[in-house]
């Protein structure tokens, strides 16, 4: 991957308050069809 020439390189230190990793997606409860009257 051509990200540019090494001469332009500068350092950044990123220390997030919380790591940007999402938790598992919530499981949706199945929606029941309404019972016929």
């Amino acid at each position, binding site marked *: *991957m*051509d*990200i*540019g*020439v*090494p001469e*332009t*390189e*500068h*350092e*950044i*230190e*990123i*220390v*997030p*308050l919380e*790591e*940007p*990793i*999402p*938790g*598992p*997606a919530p499981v949706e409860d199945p929606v029941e069809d309404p019972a016929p009257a």
Partner: protein
Amino acid sequence: MSELSIEPVLGWRLWHVRLHDDEYRLESFTMHHVSWPAGSRFEAGCAVHGGGAPVHQHECGIYAFTLRAYAEELLRRYIGVRHHYGREYRELPPVRQGRPIALGSVSLWGRILARERGYRAQYAYPYELFLIGGDEQIAREVRDRYAVDVSLA
């Protein structure tokens, strides 16, 4: 001295989407059979510097571009599409069926070495993915596995 920030950097990159043990996983675009873990950060490693990657004056680290356009440009080069009727090709080109590619944004943090077109980072996790050459079922599997938004490109 390096800049210090608490906000992750958002970069752009490509992944192969490949079946491993009946599960679709994101795999490095350039390093053969290096899978990105789901639910935990991907950490840069280096055969020379071990866990110290990325290191100045070396090529180790997790790569990402600053702009989506650069990732799209790499995709066109990868599948050999340069021009379309004499003009620069603007649409995302098709990939070989059954060999999906994900183009997407990625959170980068830890120690990052930034250049004018991209980054080499210590830690990364996908942020949002666009699936090229896949279908809804693969998109759903990747979405559930990595817990990020995945849509068909």
